[in-house]
């Protein structure tokens, strides 16, 4: 049994879960925005990265790590709200490509601004939670306290978001303004506020993902590009509408990539992901977890 637990196959599974958790969170954050405003936020990774830079910059002023985490998340939430209010609000009702172009522009702008302020040299973060793997009879198990933190944080976020949407009045309002904005407005829901709140929530989740990812891989302005794309792939495979779909396909994607990277070749992971996405979308354009929607003319 020990040989299996410390063996290659099982370690890969654990690595995959650790990566998958982050992909899932990003996918979830994209789904939150998509559900509320029907915009795919291409700048999601860069915005979260910006928040992480702001928060983790405090580390050099001897601020405690967990305070920095808190500041990052707050910064992410504020940034999300500001973006919705200042940029995205002007794009509702515009042709489909306008929001795409604006968000890509924001991605370019934010990454360049980060590069200008903090340079593109990678910065490491020392976390109080160790990422050294636990040993099992002298052999490394593919699991560290940090992995546990990742999984714990993801479960907490997922449950929190789920509970918010299912059990609270606010969640009901959020869902209502996503599905039927006009009716919700008539019934007294402040739809504008709900859309802002959707973006704030999403960026909160995105920042958590960025924090987890950067704690291991260090900070660079473009660090989130790759993982953002996987997050998009997971969200698209799950169907962009479905939070559960995003979480599940993020995990599947993470595990698949870990196996592929170890047994085959890590250079071709993006291409394999692309192929998977193409195949899934050819078979089910609405995604695996979404019901088929009929567009009303």
């Amino acid at each position, binding site marked *: 049994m020990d040989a299996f637990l410390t063996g290659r196959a099982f370690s890969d599974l654990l690595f995959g879960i650790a990566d998958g958790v982050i992909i899932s969170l990003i996918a979830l954050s994209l789904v939150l925005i*998509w559900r509320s405003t029907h915009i795919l936020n291409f700048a999601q990774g860069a915005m979260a990265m910006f928040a992480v830079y702001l928060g983790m910059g405090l580390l050099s002023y001897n601020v405690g790590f967990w305070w920095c985490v808190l500041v990052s998340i707050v910064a992410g939430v504020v940034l999300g709200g500001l973006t919705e209010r200042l940029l995205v609000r002007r794009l509702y009702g515009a042709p489909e490509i306008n929001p*795409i172009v604006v968000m890509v522009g924001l991605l370019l*702008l934010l990454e360049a601004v980060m590069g200008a302020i903090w340079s593109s040299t990678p910065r490491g973060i020392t976390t109080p939670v160790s990422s050294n793997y636990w040993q099992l009879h002298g052999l490394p198990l593919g699991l560290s306290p940090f992995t546990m933190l990742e999984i714990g944080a993801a479960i907490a976020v997922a449950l929190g978001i789920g509970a918010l949407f299912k059990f609270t009045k606010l969640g009901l309002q959020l869902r209502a303004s996503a599905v039927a904005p006009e009716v919700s407005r008539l019934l007294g829901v402040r739809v504008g506020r709900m859309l802002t709140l959707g973006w704030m929530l999403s960026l909160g989740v995105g920042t958590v993902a960025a924090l987890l990812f950067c704690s291991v891989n260090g900070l660079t302005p473009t660090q989130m590009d790759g993982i953002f794309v996987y997050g998009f792939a997971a969200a698209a495979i799950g169907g962009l509408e479905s939070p559960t779909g995003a979480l599940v396909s993020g995990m599947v994607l993470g595990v698949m990539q870990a196996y592929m990277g170890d047994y085959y070749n890590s250079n071709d992971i993006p291409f394999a992901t692309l192929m998977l996405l193409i195949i899934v979308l050819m078979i089910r354009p609405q995604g695996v977890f979404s019901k088929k929607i009929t567009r009303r003319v």
Partner: protein
Amino acid sequence: MSALFRVGDALRVYRDRHPVLWRLIWTVVLVAIAVYMTTHLSATTDGLLATGACMSIVILGLSFLTGASGQVSLGNAAFMGVGAYATAIWANHHTTTPVAVVLLIGALSGAAVGLLIGLPATRLRGPYLAGMTLLFAISFEGIVLFFGSWTGGDAPLQLPTIAVAPQWFVDRFSSSIPLFTLNQMWLADIAIVTVGVSFFFMANLFRSRTGRAMRLVRDNDVAAELVGISLPHARVLAFVVSAAYAGLGGALYTLVTGNASYSTYSLGLSITILSLLVIGGIGTLSGALIGGVIFAYSTTWIDWIVGKTGITQGGNLAANLPNIIFGGLLVITMLVAPYGIAGAIKMGAGKVSRRFRVTRMPMASG
């Protein structure tokens, strides 16, 4: 004065009766002027012109995709890369192939890969396609490394002597002109002629039945389907044409730079192409040209800004200034003037001409 108007009216009648011939004449005249100009410009300017020409072809392709069918691709730099590598690989094996054939190979290979990636596009809408092409842009490096035995892997694939000015071209000029200048001139001329051909083709496609069908798909896909346009066909065709133009641009760029390297055709370049398209003006020929010129001269202009404002040369801000400007312009243009520079000029010209309009007899239609 009235005689002048009569000439103008006669020309207008000619334009309306023979639109294709009219465009052909325009193209030939403009290309001839541009080619003549290259013989009097410095080698540096010729090089910049050639670079701008490559980029304007790529931008024109994206312009067609976005302007005519309403889709966005974030992977056009990768399609450029496909054309670039195809050209370089071919030229390494067949050194005597004429330049036109080599460029055609670049365009065709771009189109072929575009067809593969674009097939799912038939069933997808906006953000899905953009995200998918983004994924393609990210995976281009892996694809190049995967075919390492052909592409040479990490090292840039060098081009043999194909991009050197042929003897008949050299003989036309006095022997006092250095060969380097002649080569740059030759490249600029090839690029300009290619731009002429591809813009001529696009101008006709834009105004053809297919082009009109695509614009309807963009504006209202349900209405398009109801009048019998096949959405899948229209979408895939737009995507393939845009990929072919990207491939052609990449092939040309390989001739200009002398090598193909995947690090050139990164996601960053894809996003730059999109910004140039938006800044120049989506769905217009002049917008693509403006975008190409901006690309060619952006380094020069930014160096000038850096010099004027006293930003530390080679510092973080100077290094990131291009993307700050492009990103900022992309957001602002889209919010303030969604039709870009070309659109703004057209609108401004429209206002001016309305103010000074000469009242004339309406033309008899026919």
